[in-house]
Structure formats: structure tokens, C-alpha cells
């Protein structure tokens, strides 16, 4: 019998009722009395000098309240970058200014030049069309390898388009060269990890409000981390102290990373609300989202895998060009470095590894974390090169992987991280079972009988979630701590409110976090409510990204609940006239061990707030505790994925036939929610592999700027997935033994799809060894017919 409550159960999500009945409150559903609307006039060219922005005609248009340009922000701070990477020479990365509104130059299509505030959205848009721009176009900077050789500069004042040239681990470089020189076999692969747009279905929205009587600012925004926005915008852009700035991220319609970052529109609406004396609202159109939300991936990589005569991996060397876009988005520098280089060992005991990353400025939208952030890029190249090596050596790709698996834990990789736990053979065994690998040959025959090629692709992945600890990430360049906080407030009648710094934008925390509290105390989940997403209600929060909510935010909640229980036991001991060491809490009842003397949860909570019979000299009344949890290590979910495709040899069209995922997420709180997270990640990973691509032409025009051009995965592109998380090696260093599950699907699935397509093509005698994503019919057909 599956559990019906507490940890390990799958209660229906309580947040669903409001979403299913149209009663959710997303940021665009919020309207503040007297609000105005802002429309941003955005650059339609990639790169230009701004000679003049003439707003004289526009300012006379009906309904216009005010028009702002870059000049108005010249004396105000720019958008900050939250991570400083140090290059291979020990020098800090180049860090250009990022103005709220473009000043002097525009640097990508979509760069905001002016902002029109008007009585209605339509009036703001109409007036923006009347602004006269005098621009001198400059050459677009698009190709990363060309950009670092010279030519036009994205930022003239920093003197180079090379943000940093990072070597990791620099001390291993000579040993890697030696190992490659001495290898029995070296497999080399050059590939592109295609640029993607995160595309949460809710476009970004910001509403700024200012109370002149109190000096209080409020920002409603579509964010994964309202406290981070409060700090970045308050301290670095607008100079507003935290106690005068409230940031609210209510129901948020998906994030996938792109709603982590602090954006110009948030700062603008907050600033302008005070400047015009009325609330200011901005709602992105999808077209605006494509040219202003931070993009993801966009790596160009060469990877070499060295093997000895027995097919043991002896070294890995990579060289990657990583696109930063026109400005450094909030966490952009960390993605191709610390979230990518540190995962290059994968699931394998490769003794020496060297990773080189050149981060490059281009005249494109900034690139930052998107679901997986660095780890999909690491996994893709490693799992592709292993597959290629297996084919070159004529060995079974699963056997080659198994032979090189790490089997002893903890395991210190040569790329600076220590895996606490795992069992990669177990997840591969499980995968072989659920994917019915043995039955593949028969299925291939059946496909061939229909005139289709069938391929099987298998790969492993490991990722690092819950980035930590703060003192380490500080040494690596993070300008923030990466703890989480939670307050557990017990009310007099026993109900509990948990204020968590984690933010749910689809993950289901309102349902899953109470499962943990209910289990700890032995009460019904309906007695626990979760509050998140409002800096005026939650003491502090670093937010939700990097699959950290449960591992870090959940751990903080457990620590706070432990403090609550400790105090509650003291109260119970007083009421029962016993020693607190003898008090046991089970099923919501405090009992003196070995006796039938007991008091229930409600009796203790009432005593805490009506302290008539209470140890007032030793204990404060009330029952509320806060904890901050700073993890001692990442968590390392891992697994094995299998994809089966059919390829139509006439058209090159690839269809997904089967997809199986065996994941090890450690302990599981809510299996239904975990399955859903994996499904969604796989959908995005298959989207990357087959459909999605953000394309700029040589002039820097965004050619995939709407859903007419950017191929989002749709229901009929996908299949039912077979997912399993029964292999569980609990995390050894957090209180729940949990890992993270939010990004695994997107990390693990792209190589499985590409490996499957290559397998299908080679089954028909093709010599093709790689096809870049997305594997559109034209690319596959061209590869087959080259």
C-alpha cells in the first residue's frame, strides 16, 4: 500500500483548485488603483550608436504621463552581476555596465531605449511609435570565435569581447595533455549546444507602486526569488534599503531559470512609480519575452576523450565558447564555469580532466541559467563523446559506461567536487528493465518492416543541486550566500504556518512542504499552510533554482521545526511534570516515555500562547522558530535514460517512440510531484534535441522571435514517458536525505535522443557520427545523404 499521508505519499495538490477554477493570482492579475502603463521602445537593430532620442512629438500624444530615456538613468546604478569569475591568469572577468535603459549604444535587438508611461497600454504603445530615433548602425557581433579575434566591440570601454578565459583545473592541464598523448584511443567531437529560450508560459510582468506618505516601495514581479530581487535592485540599482522595499512574487507561471534574474523592467517600474507619483505596470508580450528574457545554453564545444587499451577512460579535455550575449545577466558567468566544469567527470572515474571556457560578448540577448544551467551542457558533450567512442571501438555503449562507473563513495572528482553517494549500476539496471532494452532488436525489426529506421540511445547523467556551501561559493566568485531560511509559526490552536524562502512556480511546495511537517509532528497536513513569495511576510529567502527548494529550503524548514518540537517538548514536560528528556512526540501526542501520561499537540500549543500553567521563568511564551540552513555540499542526483526513435529515411523526420528514465533522487517526499518534474524536464530536453533553436542571422536579427518561428514542443511531438525513481541512495548530508529532481529530465534527455538518432542512421550503414541539435528533418536528411 502506498502511504496516504506524510513523507512518501502523493496527496492531490492543494494549489490546483485555484488554478483550475481561474482563481490564481498571477502578477498580471494584480491592478493597483490609479496605475499607469509603460511600453518600452526597444531596439530593432543589433548594434548601433544612439545619436538622439527625440520624444517631443511622442510626449504630446494622448494619455502620455512621462517618457524616460537612458539619460534619466545615467546617474543611477546599472543592473548588477551576481557572480565574478576569475580567469586562468588569476584576473577578474571583464564586467561591462548594464544600464536600465540603453545609453550611448544599443547592443541587441530588444535593448530598451525609451519607456513611455501613459494612462492606458494602448496609449503608451501609440506614443512609443511617435518617438524619433537617430541611430548609426554598427556591425553586429554574432559569431563567438570571430568576436574574440577583434573587430567590432560590444562594449568599447572594456576593450575586448572576451569576458574571461577560464581554465579548470589549470594545474591538471599538463597531466591531461600527457594522458591524451599516451592514450590507446582518443575520440574527438565538436558540437553545438543550441541556444534556447526558456519560455515559461507566463510572460514577465512588473508592477511598481510607491507610497509618498511613508516612502515605501512595492514591486509585484514574476520572480523565482523575490528577496534576491529586493537586494539586487535595492542595493545596487535604486539605492532603496530593504526595509523600505517590498517585493512580491505571487503565483508565477513557470520560471525554468529565466525568472531568477533581476531585469531592467523591474527596476524601471519601481523607479518610475515614484517619479510619476502613480503605480506603473508592465506586461511583456511574448515577442518582448523572446528579445528580453535571458536565453539559455549556446555553447560551441570541442571535447576529447582518451582511453587506454582496455577502454578505461584516462582523460577528458574540453574547449568551449560560451555566449554571454550583450550584457552579463545576474548569474551568467557561473553557468559555463562552476555549474559546467565541475560536472565534467560525469558518472565516471576519469582520473584527469581539463576544461577551458571562453565567455564571449555578442550583440544578442544576455544568456544565463535555463533548466539545468551548465549541467546539461556538460552531460551532453560527455555522453555524446562516450557514445561516439563506443561506436569507434565497436563496443556496447552501455558496457563501456558501466566499465568506467564510479562505484566507491564518497568520491572526489578531479574537478573539485565530492559526490557523497550514488549507485550508477543500480539505475542502469533499472533502466535496462523499464526500457526493455532486450526487446529493442524485435522493435527495430518491426520498424524496418514499415520502412523506418529505429535507433536506441542510452546515456547517464549526474548533476549537482542545491549549490553550496556559502563560504565555498564565495571563494568561487558568488556575490551572494546560498543558504535558505524558514520560519515555522505554530498558532495557539495548533495550526502551523511555514514561511519559506523557497518559491513555488509550479513545483507544488504548498502541498509537499506540509507533508514533511505533518510527518515530523504526526498531525494532518491540512493543519499546515505554506507562505512564500513576499518579502514582507517571509523573513529571508534565496529562492528557487538549481533544484534547491527541498534540499536547502526543505532542510531549513526541518531545522526550524526541530527547534519548535524541542521547545514544545519542554512545555509538555512542564504540563506532565516530567523531564523533557523523557518526552516522546508521536502521532501528534506528547507522552512521558514508559507511561500513559500524555498531552496532545493542541494542549501544548495552547499553553504556549495562554501560559497560565507554564515555566515562565525558564521559557518564553509562544511557539515560533526560524532557521537558516547552509548546506555543506551539493546533492548529486544521477540516473540513466533511454530513448527510442524512428527515423523516416524519405524525409529525415524523427519521431520519439519510447522514452524511459531511471533516476536516483534519494528520499522522495511526493512521488506524483517528482514524476511530474521529470516529465516536464524530459519534454524540454526532447524539445532541445528535436525542435527548439533560437537563431540570430549575421546582422543580429532574431529570427525565432515568436511561436511561429521558435518550435515549442507540443503534445503530439511527445509520448508517455516511463519514469522510475525507485533507486534511492539518500543524500548523506541533509536532514531529509533528499536530492533535487527539478532539472534532471532536461539534463539527462538530450543526449539520449541524439544517441538514438545516430544509432538509427548507422543501422542503415550511414557513417554519420553527429548531428547538431535541433535534429530537424532537414538536418537529419542532409546528414543521411551527405
Amino acid at each position, binding site marked *: 500500500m502506498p502511504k496516504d499521508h506524510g513523507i512518501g505519499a502523493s496527496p492531490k495538490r492543494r494549489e490546483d483548485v485555484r488554478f483550475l477554477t481561474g482563481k490564481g493570482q498571477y502578477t498580471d492579475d494584480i491592478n493597483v488603483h490609479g496605475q499607469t502603463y509603460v511600453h518600452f521602445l526597444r531596439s530593432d537593430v543589433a548594434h548601433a550608436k544612439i545619436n538622439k532620442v527625440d520624444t517631443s512629438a511622442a510626449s504630446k500624444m494622448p494619455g502620455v504621463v512621462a517618457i524616460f530615456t537612458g539619460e534619466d538613468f545615467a546617474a543611477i546604478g546599472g543592473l548588477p552581476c551576481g557572480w565574478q569569475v576569475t580567469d586562468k591568469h588569476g584576473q577578474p572577468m571583464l564586467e561591462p555596465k548594464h544600464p536600465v535603459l540603453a545609453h550611448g549604444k544599443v547592443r541587441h535587438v530588444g535593448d530598451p531605449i525609451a519607456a513611455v508611461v501613459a494612462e492606458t497600454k494602448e496609449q503608451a504603445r501609440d506614443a512609443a511609435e511617435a518617438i524619433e530615433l537617430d541611430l548609426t548602425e554598427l556591425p553586429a557581433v554574432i559569431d563567438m570565435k570571430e568576436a574574440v579575434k577583434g573587430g567590432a566591440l560590444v562594449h568599447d570601454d572594456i576593450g575586448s569581447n572576451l569576458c574571461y578565459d577560464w581554465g579548470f583545473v589549470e594545474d591538471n592541464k599538463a597531466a591531461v595533455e600527457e594522458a591524451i598523448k599516451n592514450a590507446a584511443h582518443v575520440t574527438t567531437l565538436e558540437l553545438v549546444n543550441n541556444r534556447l529560450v526558456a519560455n515559461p508560459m507566463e510572460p514577465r510582468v512588473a508592477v511598481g507602486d510607491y507610497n509618498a506618505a511613508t516612502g515605501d516601495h512595492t514591486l509585484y514581479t514574476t520572480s523565482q526569488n523575490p528577496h534576491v530581487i529586493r537586494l539586487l535592485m535595492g542595493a545596487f540599482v535604486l539605492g532603496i534599503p530593504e526595509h523600505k522595499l517590498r517585493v512580491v512574487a505571487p503565483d508565477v507561471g513557470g520560471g525554468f531559470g529565466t525568472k531568477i534574474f533581476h531585469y531592467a523592467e523591474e527596476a524601471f517600474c519601481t523607479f518610475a512609480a515614484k517619479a510619476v507619483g502613480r503605480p506603473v505596470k508592465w506586461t511583456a508580450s511574448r515577442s518582448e519575452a523572446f528579445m528580453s528574457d535571458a536565453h539559455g545554453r549556446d555553447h560551441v564545444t570541442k571535447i576529447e576523450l582518451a582511453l587506454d587499451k582496455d577502454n578505461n577512460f584516462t582523460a577528458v579535455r574540453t574547449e568551449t565558447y560560451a555566449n554571454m550575449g550583450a550584457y552579463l545577466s545576474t548569474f551568467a558567468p557561473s553557468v559555463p564555469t562552476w555549474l559546467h566544469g565541475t560536472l565534467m567527470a560525469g558518472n565516471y572515474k576519469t582520473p584527469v580532466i581539463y576544461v577551458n571556457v571562453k565567455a564571449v560578448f555578442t550583440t544578442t540577448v544576455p544568456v544565463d541559467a535555463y533548466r539545468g544551467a551548465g549541467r546539461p551542457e556538460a552531460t551532453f558533450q560527455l555522453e555524446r563523446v562516450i557514445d561516439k567512442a563506443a561506436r569507434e571501438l565497436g563496443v556496447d555503449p552501455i558496457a563501456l559506461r558501466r566499465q568506467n562507473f564510479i562505484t566507491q563513495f564518497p568520491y572526489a572528482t578531479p574537478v573539485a567536487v565530492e559526490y557523497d553517494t550514488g549507485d550508477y549500476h543500480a539505475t542502469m539496471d533499472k533502466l535496462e528493465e523499464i526500457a526493455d532494452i532486450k526487446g529493442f532488436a524485435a522493435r527495430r525489426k518491426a520498424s524496418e518492416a514499415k520502412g523506418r529506421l529505429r535507433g536506441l540511445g542510452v546515456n547517464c547523467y549526474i548533476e549537482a543541486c542545491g549549490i553550496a556551501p556559502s563560504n565555498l561559493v564565495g571563494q568561487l566568485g558568488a556575490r551572494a550566500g546560498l543558504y535558505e531560511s524558514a520560519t515555522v509559526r505554530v498558532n495557539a490552536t495548533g495550526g502551523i504556518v511555514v514561511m519559506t524562502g523557497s518559491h513555488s512556480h*509550479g513545483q507544488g511546495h504548498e502541498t509537499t512542504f506540509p507533508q514533511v511537517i505533518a510527518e515530523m509532528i504526526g498531525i494532518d497536513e491540512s493543519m499546515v499552510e505554506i507562505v512564500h513569495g513576499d518579502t514582507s511576510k517571509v523573513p529571508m529567502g534565496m529562492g528557487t533554482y538549481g533544484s534547491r527548494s527541498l534540499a536547502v529550503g526543505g532542510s531549513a524548514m526541518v531545522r526550524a521545526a526541530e527547534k519548535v518540537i524541542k521547545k514544545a517538548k519542554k512545555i509538555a514536560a512542564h504540563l506532565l511534570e516530567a523531564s523533557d528528556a523523557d518526552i516522546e512526540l508521536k502521532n501528534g501526542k506528547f507522552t512521558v516515555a514508559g507511561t500513559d501520561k500524555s498531552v496532545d499537540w493542541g494542549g501544548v500549543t495552547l499553553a504556549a500562547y495562554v501560559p497560565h500553567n507554564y515555566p515562565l521563568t525558564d521559557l518564553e511564551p509562544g511557539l515560533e522558530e526560524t532557521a537558516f540552513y547552509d548546506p555543506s555540499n551539493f546533492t548529486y542526483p544521477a540516473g540513466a535514460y533511454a530513448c527510442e526513435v524512428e527515423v523516416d529515411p524519405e524525409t529525415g523526420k524523427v519521431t520519439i517512440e519510447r522514452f524511459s528514465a531511471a533516476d536516483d533522487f534519494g528520499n522522495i517526499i511526493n512521488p506524483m510531484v517528482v514524476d511530474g518534474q521529470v516529465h516536464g524536464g524530459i519534454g524540454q530536453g526532447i524539445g532541445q534535441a528535436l525542435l527548439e533553436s533560437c537563431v540570430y542571422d549575421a546582422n543580429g536579427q532574431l529570427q525565432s522571435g515568436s511561436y511561429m518561428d521558435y518550435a515549442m514542443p507540443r503534445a503530439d511531438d511527445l509520448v508517455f514517458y*516511463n519514469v522510475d525513481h525507485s533507486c534511492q541512495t539518500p543524500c548523506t548530508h541533509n536532514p531529509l536525505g533528499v536530492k533535487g529532481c527539478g532539472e534532471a529530465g532536461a539534463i539527462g534527455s538530450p543526449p539520449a535522443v541524439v544517441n538514438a538518432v545516430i544509432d538509427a542512421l548507422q543501422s542503415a550503414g550511414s557513417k554519420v557520427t553527429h548531428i547538431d541539435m535541433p535534429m530537424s528533418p532537414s538536418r537529419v536528411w542532409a546528414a543521411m545523404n551527405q
Partner: protein
Amino acid sequence: MTQVTMTVNGRAMSGDVEGRTLLVEFLRNSARLTGTHVGCDTSQCGACVVHVDGKAVKSCTMFAVEADGADVRTVEGMANADGSLGAIQQAFQDYHGLQCGFCTPGMIMSAAALLKDNPKPTETEVRHYLEGNICRCTGYHNIVKAILAASGQDVSAIAAE
């Protein structure tokens, strides 16, 4: 400005609109029914699907004046009379067919239109029908499953082959 009047979820709603005002803008701003969402500007995502005179319509692709006099149903009108979740809504909750909830109103309205025309659709038919509704969270697995379940079909074997 033109005055339009329509019946929304059984109640008469009136408002002054511009010629360019979209039906979704009327529903969200004039009727204050914010359950219907806008996820794109090219009639692709389907977050704005409502029923107009019984037919599924992308309300971002219809002017409010075109709906003058029409009978409109939105996600706010899909619960049972006693306020409990309707059968499709209930299936979405039972099978975890939503995560962030933003595409959900459009999914519910499309699913209702599908099941009205085709009460026992196959998996392929469901997937094909949902081509005009984009979800970024679920990979569609549980949405398709929920719609099949709402049609009364047994979904217990799905993905356990």
C-alpha cells in the same frame, strides 16, 4: 468606444471597448475574469481559449466587438453548480495535469471542447487536438492522461507497459 454586451458564464456583462480591444482583454479588464490568460501574441499558445457560442475560440484572436451578443464561457464557469470541480478539472487535479497553472485554463477549455465533439478520444486524437495549446511544465504526459481519464477511459496502464 463602442459598448458591447455579452453573456459570460451565464451573467450579462457590458463594457465600452475600442475597435482593437480583444475579447481576452474585455474578459480580463472589463469583466474582471482573470482566469483566462495571455501567453503569446500569435494565436499559438492557447492559454486564452474560451468557448463562444459553444465553440472553442482563442480569445486573443477575436475582437470584443465580434463577441457582442455572444454566449461566452470561461474557466471560471467550469465548476459544478455546488462549486466543486467539474469532471475535467477534477481529472486534472487527480492526475497532476498542471504545475504552474498558467496554461491550465486554456487546456481545460480545449479539453472540454474536444470531449464534447469526441467523447472517447484516443491518445493520438488528444495529442493532435492539443496542438494549439502549449504547456511548458508537464511534458503533456499528465495532461493527456487526465483528459483520457475525464473521458471515462482506464488510464491505469499508461507508462507502465
